[in-house]
């Protein structure tokens, strides 16, 4: 059984089909990629999974439990965490507070010491040097890392990352790849939306390709690269990863 099971989800915005009977699965302990051109419905899918976007049809299940229609904060407590493509960090708060507030909400449910957890995450994402700066002052790349740290502070089972590598330097991008691999090895299920195709190919065990709100293809990195539809719709050529 998959950690996350999205079945036949349909979302309409007025007359537009944003998602058309999309199904996908994310397994615990691995990174799953969700790629596709702009406007393919990737962020809408994230909003569906986190409950910010109601569905017109279909269901979402976490650990075999149906969570369709469950409110966003309850899904978060059930173990879903995410970052946002357009930054949604708590801008007037410091980096440390961004993480701390998530750890404290978590503490409502168990006894873990939020300040220690926060320090550990600051360290792990190399944010120690900016820990006490206002988050809105940070460059985009590092603000994305703050969102990842904040998401991890909720100690999720499933982590949704919306273009975490955009704005990162090459070195930071490499660090991100290592981090994702380590997190997955620790048992976390990760769903990754990313335009940096080499990064996706490198870390993802399974990839879903969305185009015009429908799943165009799915499979391993190798299968996706070989898929002719994908090449035409999105990747262009296979040289991208060469």
């Amino acid at each position, binding site marked *: 059984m998959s950690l996350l099971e999205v079945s036949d989800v349909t979302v309409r915005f007025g007359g537009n089909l944003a998602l058309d009977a999309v199904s996908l699965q994310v397994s615990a302990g691995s990174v799953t990629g969700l790629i596709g051109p702009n406007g393919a419905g990737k962020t809408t899918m994230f909003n569906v999974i986190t409950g910010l976007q*109601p569905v017109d049809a279909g269901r979402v299940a976490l650990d075999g439990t149906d969570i369709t229609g469950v409110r966003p904060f309850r899904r978060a407590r059930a173990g879903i965490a995410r970052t946002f493509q357009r930054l949604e960090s708590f801008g007037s708060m410091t980096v440390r507070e961004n993480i701390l507030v998530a750890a404290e909400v978590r503490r409502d449910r168990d006894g873990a010491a939020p300040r220690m957890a926060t320090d550990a995450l600051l360290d792990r994402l190399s944010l120690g040097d900016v820990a006490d700066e206002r988050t809105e002052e940070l460059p985009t790349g590092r603000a994305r890392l703050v969102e990842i740290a904040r998401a991890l502070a909720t100690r999720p089972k499933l982590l949704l990352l919306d273009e975490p590598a955009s704005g990162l330097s090459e070195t930071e991008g490499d660090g991100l790849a290592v981090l994702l691999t380590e997190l997955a090895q620790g048992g976390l299920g990760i769903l990754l939306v990313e335009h940096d195709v080499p990064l996706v190919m490198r870390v993802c065990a399974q990839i879903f390709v969305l185009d015009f709100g429908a799943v165009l293809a799915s499979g391993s990195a190798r299968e996706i690269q070989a898929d002719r539809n994908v090449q035409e719709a999105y990747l262009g050529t296979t040289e991208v990863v060469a």
Partner: protein
Amino acid sequence: MSFSEILQFTILGLATAGVYAVAASGLVVTYQTSGIFNFAHGAVGMIVAYVYWELRVRQHLPAPLAIFLALFVVAPLLGALIERLLMRHLSGSSVITRIVVTIGLLVGLLGVARVVWSGDITPPPNLPRFFGDNVVRFGGVNLPWHQIVVLICAVLVAVGLRLILKSTRLGVAMRAVVDDRELTGLNGCNPARTSMSAWMLGSFLAGLAGILIAPTLPGNLDQATLTLLVINAFAAAMVGRLRSLPMTFVGAIILGLASSYMDLGAAQMSSSPGWYDDVRGSLPVILLFVVLLVIPQERIKVSAATEKLGRIPRPSFRKGIIAGVSLVIGVAVVGQLLQGADLRALGVVVALAIVMLSYVPLTGYAGQISLAQLTFAGLGAYVAVVVVGPEGSLLGLIVAFVAAGVIGALVALPALRLHGLYLALGTMAFALVVENVIFAGDQNFSSGTRAFGRPSFLAGQHAYLIFMTVVFVVLGLGVLALRRGSYGRRLQALKDSPAASATIGMNQTYVKLAVFGFSAGIAGIGGYLLGCWKGQVGQSDFSLINGALPGLAVLLLAVVGGIAVIAGAFVGAVFLVAMPRLGEIFPSINNLMLIAPGLVGVTLARNPDGAVMQAVDRVRERFGDKDDDTVDGSVAADRDDPPVGPEDFVVGGRTASTAELAALDAGLGVTREDCGVPA
């Protein structure tokens, strides 16, 4: 009831609807082009109606000339001035700033009207109806010519607006959903000119509505009534979701007919029951509230904030206690020096400071805008005095806190799905209903003669003054504890990003209800203390727009002091009370003092953090104090680390100098820009 009566009231209702439609379409035009919801729309209409009265009645100009000057010269000029001086500077500012600046304008225009057409003319002057009381016979009923003029005007406005929107640039700009002035600029519109024409048109429509409706009102040119008529326009415009003019007209017709038929109903009954009159009087407000609750709201919004987020200071407890003790000593000393009216004014300052303090957690921390805080104060006072009686008891404070708190949480329940402007309007509707129904319903309270007593050991003026100050300090420290704790961080998170706070597992319902309840409770204590201080209070002390210290001014000056600053609440209260008092003492500046609250309110566009923060910044610049704790609210200061300057970074547990870091960077082959640090 006969057919002719129904016909008559239908036509009267349609005429009323016509006025509402004219006013509401002005609101929609300005909101669509500038993104600013003009709370002062009714006040603009009031000013233009007064200008017309001045020209027509006092200066005896012929009606056509007076109409031309008032509607086609003064009104557009006023609109252009408002746009040029105020609204243009608001692009990119926060919702709260936008709301408060137009509230400042409202308060300022009311002040202007009082100065120019002195409020001592009581009863207010009368604007004559068009064609006097002449009537037309139609279908067996008598129709006043005035109502026919109104109907014709409404039709002309509808047709005119349609033409303007179809064929001019203003129309293009309005039909495009304008979020971004620069973007419209790229599309070939001149945003500044578009916005100015929208405000000129808006003013014209407000003025037309004012001139048309004043003669039909019981109070005629009563300034507050005319200003509040805007509520009718709010309700109608909300039916059109502030966007659609046809739906706005539909909303106006519903409202006009409903109130006219209720008048007919009342005319049928020999004596209508009290509740019927309550509903009739509050119909626009009720409609506004219902519409707010049923129109589809945006879901939790996922979008990056474009506005600069305000600063929320986070002083240490030590500083808070020192400041609190100093305040108590200061008030005690000043209190000894004052007597009579000045001493009474100082007590009012302290009580109102508590009411303003209630804004700090609610609006300052959590970003929830309420226009009903003074109403909660009144409810707290009212319930407490009913429960503990006029003898006075400390128990009254607890009753006031609990009663206002529970009501606050109950109000928050339907308001949960509202935010920003809609929440402000919803709480405004609530405030007006409470004022019209509950406050006005109790005879002693409506006349302002409800007696409030004090416990015997606090009977003396000075003792009670110090007692109130201590209560302010204790509540202030409570708010500080909230700020410094985990719950305060949650409020701030909710303000910065509702979407993200939900996705980290925060129960927003609970957080919002709690903060609404808590802050309403604080306001309730303030209201009860005010009652006990003055000995008797009532409706006029807790009114949104009438009275000496109206609720709108309370919000305005809370923001001026600094909505997220505990000390700002006290400073705001000092401003609020001192200005009219100074006017009383020095009659030569009385006029200035009437306008002053509005003036300081509208300067906010340039200084949204408030007076206290600005003063603190000045002092910091002067003395080079880099204590970031109170500025940015970092958690680091909880520890006993040595202060870390902005140019220093902690490396391996010790502070590295900039030079060491540069060496480190060189060794790693990175520049400081890579890490996001300006070189």
